[in-house]
């Protein structure tokens, strides 16, 4: 929180879209950018950006992860906060970049970058104190907090605080919400049966809430959960919180 708050409300922020948003959920990225813009913040999207490096990191290929991470860091050199519409990618930066570069010449630059990283809802609530006006019809939603948003990024109740501002949105608590949905990147295909058991339990819990939408701040989880709901012919539609907030507050359906 220190960086942007110390300098007051920032006028400009960087947006790091993440590879999965880039290729599968660009609407979530765009909605995140628009939310920031509508709060009066100028958004810069460095064009050369790609991926935080997490896929290689989690597979144990640290050299490759480091090379890709460094390629990103260089693109975000100015003193702006870096806003990321994913707790997992932001968590990769915050929790693992320092270790990846410890004792290397790039260390200081990396630490400066890391101190500027925010998960989107954290930034909207903690820094911008965003106020929302609900324009949508009544709807029942449930919230899936991602493991890395909670445990690496320290995202707490920010997403729910945003949702609670929406007067016609009923938020139903997801039982065992803190339990992993079973995505875990390569885990889902290296241990497919365990992963399947996890996501099957998760979509069962979601169905039990009766929610029309299952919201999350991480597209990896959404791809996993959404894919499983679709295959099972379930009801709840998966949606990134940024897209949901933008739809509700700007009436675009």
């Amino acid at each position: 929180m220190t960086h942007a708050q110390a300098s007051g409300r920032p006028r400009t922020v960087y947006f790091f879209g993440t590879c999965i948003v880039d290729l599968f959920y660009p609407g979530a990225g765009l909605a995140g950018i628009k939310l920031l813009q509508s709060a009066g913040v100028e958004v810069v999207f460095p064009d050369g950006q790609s991926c935080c490096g997490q896929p290689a990191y989690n597979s144990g290929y640290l050299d490759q992860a480091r090379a890709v991470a460094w390629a990103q860091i260089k693109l975000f050199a100015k003193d702006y906060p870096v806003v990321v519409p994913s707790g997992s990618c932001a968590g990769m930066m915050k929790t693992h970049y320092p270790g990846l570069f410890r004792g290397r010449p790039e260390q200081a630059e990396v630490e400066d970058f890391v101190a500027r990283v925010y998960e989107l809802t954290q930034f909207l609530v903690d820094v911008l104190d965003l106020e929302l006006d609900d324009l949508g019809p009544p709807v029942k939603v449930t919230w899936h907090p991602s493991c890395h948003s909670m445990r690496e990024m320290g995202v707490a109740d920010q997403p729910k605080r945003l949702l609670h501002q929406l007067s016609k949105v009923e938020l139903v608590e997801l039982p065992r919400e803190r339990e992993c949905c079973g995505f875990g990147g390569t885990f889902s295909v290296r241990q497919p049966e365990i992963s399947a058991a996890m996501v099957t339990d998760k979509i069962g819990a979601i169905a039990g809430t009766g929610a029309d939408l299952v919201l999350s701040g991480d597209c990896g989880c959404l791809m996993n959960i959404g894919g499983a709901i679709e295959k099972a012919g379930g009801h709840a539609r998966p949606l990134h919180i940024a897209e949901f907030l933008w739809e509700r507050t700007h009436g675009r359906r």
Partner: protein
Amino acid sequence: MAAADFRAKAHDALGNRELRANFRRAMDGLMSKRAMLFADRTEWTALRALGAAVRARSLLRLPELLEQLETRLRDNGIQVHWAETVDDGNAIFKDILSRHGARRVVKGKSMVSEEMGLNHALEAEGIEVIEADLGEYIIQLDHETPSHIIMPAIHKNKQQIARLFSQKIKDAEYTEDVDRLTDLARRVLRRKFAAADAGISGVNAAVAETGTLVLVENEGNGRMCTTVPRLHIAVMGLEKVVERLEEVPPILSLLTRSATGQVITTYVNMISGPRKPGEKDGPEEVHLVILDNGRSRIYADPELRNTLRCIRCGACMNHCPVYTRVGGHSYPGVYPGPIGKILTPQILGLETTGDLPHASSLCNACVEVCPVEIPIASLLVRLRSEGAGKTPHGGAPVKGAGSRRKSQEDWVWRAWALVFRMPLLNRLSNFALTRFGWALPSDSPLLREWMTVRSRPRFARRSLHELVRREGIPHE
């Protein structure tokens, strides 16, 4: 046990409804009990930091503290034996027991003894070993191994135990009443304690400055094993040492609250020597066997060393979404769950257990609850690296490092890094995937695994990069 077994066993466990229900129920209970005792976040954070510091400090000075411990134990009249391998450890036990002509042994819960396969080794010599911890007694009756490091019979429900007792205990009536079941076991065990020639126990912490062995338990069986027979042999991994007596209370507090949601256990045994002249009880001889079994090798690497901080509370498995679903018997080696995933490959080697570090979604639930702040997820990643033969600069390679290396995988990650490092390449590949990604064959092995319970992921028609350009968002 080969790693391939993990997937096969996990498959069986996942299909066993009763087993899954047993674990789910038990883990839910343990999680909520623990949560109640750590409700005060400030206290938890402070106590945990203290616990982590105590363990880290002990490890930093491990060789020196072990020497000090040995000296103090000897001063106290406790005989110390060093075992480099499990075979050495078993041989030491056999030797001590045969010198005393011991034929009947009672034993308290000890995971290190499981690691050694001690029961087997002693039974092969014709020595009767009776597990005196209720959970251990249950699984011994059923010829099983522990499915949990704290609650070894947690995979069984009441009805299963009732059936087992009525079949295996002489003259036992079938009952599902927990108190009566406990009473049945108690009656058998009491007789065994009285007749035992020796008692074996584990150790929760060994204090270097005082030469004290600390042992916590809830049933009194530990106290019986260590005081009733004439001979007591304790066994521990070499990492269990702490420097000062005052470091024990925070460790125990973290241990019992994390493990069973108890503020303190019913029994806290502080063993500081054999019976002294004039004393009415206690063993005439006390021995401590200190086992290495690969721990020195773990110790040699500053990052991997953190594995040895573990106080075996079991919280990581109680909170693990994988463990909860596959149960303790799916894991190779004796330590299941997250701690097993980092410890077992380092002891047994990555050749046979290199898949274990990959059997995690890296959800960090274990990291969140570990009372001594072991960075379990980072260690899993390190072991994944080791499997691929990528020991970091200045690190000590894990046993079997490089044995899981696949050149194909090396190439995939090299190509990946190139594409995600070079904006132009990234742009090209994004273009190709958004336009033609749908044409990728669905029968590729990875996609097939994904699609067993999920629909096929669909690439967007335009990447975020393209949308940003189209919307005129500054994209320097």
